[in-house]
Every structure is written in structure tokens, then in C-alpha cells.
């Protein structure tokens, strides 16, 4: 079997499938910006001043036979917001622990961020109320500072790694943790 040593591409590479990660069993890190505005000033005024970012992942929160089934998976989240990292995220959650469609239970077993302090709420998971691409999706809420300052979030999970591109990701700023999606 030949082994590709080098390749130089000046155009596009198109595949008929998603990339299979045979070695790690983890998805690539998905990087998201903390700079997510609210939809309008009714929610937060100005729109960048919301205290939470809601993230809709492409991971279906649906254990039906044609979906992800009952395979608990480890989701890892790291990130920071503002130049001095006033919000810092570093936690691991086991999600899809109940394996049914009544409640998509996540369990945060490890949290080394600064989001668990007395006045700083812990991350929140929820299942979207609406369907996106035919399925309800796994969503999470992280506290942020009310500015569009520098800050990134990285998310990855094991098992079902093909689902990282199963649908588009989405972010929006919100004043609270009530389910938006």
C-alpha cells in the first residue's frame, strides 16, 4: 500500500463522506466565539450585554432507533471570556445517560472552571424544544461577560463523532438559562 508523503493543493478537496477519526475516537475540537449577540434589545440592551451564551450543538438529543441510541458519551468543554478570563470553562460531562427521549440527562462529573462560584452559575444542558434537521439537539448554556470581548470555547466529544457535522452549530446571547432553541 502506498503512503502519501506530501500533497500540495491549490484548489478544493471534496469528499463524499465525513472524516473518520480512527485513532482518537474523539471529534476534532469545535471552536466557537464568545461574541454572541442577543436577537434584539428586548432580551439584552445593548445586544452584546447578555450574561449567557446558548450553544446549539449538532448532536441529536434523540435516542430513537435511527439516531444515537443509548450510548453515553463524554463531552469536554474548555474556554474563556474576556482578556482576564473572568469566565473560564473547563468541565467534562457525560451526556445521554438515560437513553430515552423524555429527558436527555447530562451529568457534569468534573468542573475545574470558575463557573461554580457562589455568584456564577454552573453550565446548563438542555434539549432543544424545536427540531433542527429533523431532530432535537443537545444545547448548553455557559455564563459570559456582557461584552463582545475576546474569548473562545472549544467543545469535543467521544463516540458518535460523525455527528459533529450532522447539522449546523449555533450561538446566541441570552439574559438567562431558559431554553432558547
Amino acid at each position, binding site marked *: 500500500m502506498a503512503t502519501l508523503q506530501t500533497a500540495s493543493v491549490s484548489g478544493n478537496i471534496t469528499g463524499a463522506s465525513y472524516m473518520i477519526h480512527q485513532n482518537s475516537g474523539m471529534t476534532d475540537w469545535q471552536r466557537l466565539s464568545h461574541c454572541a449577540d442577543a436577537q434584539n434589545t428586548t432580551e439584552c440592551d445593548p445586544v452584546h450585554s447578555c450574561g449567557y451564551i446558548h450553544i446549539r450543538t449538532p448532536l441529536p438529543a434523540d*435516542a430513537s*432507533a*435511527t439516531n444515537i441510541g443509548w450510548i453515553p458519551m463524554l463531552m469536554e468543554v474548555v474556554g474563556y471570556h474576556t482578556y482576564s478570563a473572568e469566565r473560564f470553562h473547563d468541565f467534562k460531562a457525560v451526556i445521554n445517560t438515560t437513553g430515552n427521549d423524555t429527558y436527555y440527562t447530562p451529568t457534569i462529573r468534573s468542573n475545574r472552571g470558575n463557573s461554580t462560584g457562589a455568584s456564577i452559575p454552573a453550565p446548563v444542558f438542555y434539549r432543544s424544544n424545536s427540531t433542527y434537521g429533523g431532530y432535537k439537539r443537545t444545547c448548553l448554556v455557559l455564563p459570559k461577560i456582557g461584552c463582545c470581548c475576546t474569548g473562545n470555547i472549544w467543545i469535543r466529544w467521544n463516540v458518535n463523532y460523525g455527528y459533529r457535522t450532522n447539522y449546523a452549530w449555533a450561538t446566541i446571547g441570552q439574559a438567562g438559562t431558559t431554553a432558547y432553541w
Partner: protein
Amino acid sequence: MAYEYKWKILGMEGFRALEVANSQFEDVIGKVVWECEVKDTDDWSVHWLRQETLLQNSDLQANSYIDYLEIDEETVLEWIWSTHENGRVGWQTKAKDELNAIRFPPDDVLRPMTPAWIANCCPSGEEFFNDGITYNGDE
């Protein structure tokens, strides 16, 4: 659908010194890593077109050379945009098309599937051991 685009330079690589047509240049950018974020402001779906572009330095001229410390983000972005036949809008259209390809894929494209024997096992409450199937010996 309404779309919002946001451009960002993620990283650059360059030459400390470069000789072009017998002229010496210092701190010449050779590669730019960039992203174009597209967001559907109706449902807030987001996608990032992330690429790296090698800049052509063979036509570098002293009278058009910009000192590295005076280069701004928009100037670098304009170099990136010029590599698409339709400029900035061309790249943005590509990002938007990728977003919609993710959201509305055709049925005849490979998609993730969960093994049915796992998917069907659990709402009934029946225990399932996801150990695979083991065979002993060489037979």
C-alpha cells in the same frame, strides 16, 4: 434567510528576509490563516470557512511594499479576497453554501448511523452490554 459574515485573521507566517528581483525585503508575509464566519440571523446557525492562503511574493516591488508594522487587517483580508475570482462575495457565498449543505444535505450522502442493536435496547429498560462479539481460538 438573512446572513451575517464576519472575517478574521487567525494566524500568519512570513519570511524574515526575502530577495525578489535583486531587492531585499524584510518581514514579508507568506501565508495567512483566516476564517469567514457565516451566521443565519433567522435561526442563528453558524459555520466557519477556515483556510490558509499562500501569498505570491514574486511580484513584490519596493514602491508598493508595506512595512510589516503598518499592515492592517483589512489590507491582509483584501489580499485573501483577491484570490477568489468573485472577491469577498465569492468567499462568502462559498461559506454560505457550506452552511446550507450541512443543514440540508442530500439523502444520497453518507451520514452517521448508530448500530440499531444499541439504539433499540434502552428505552425498555433492558440492560445491554456494549462489549462487541468475542470469538476464542482460530476457528
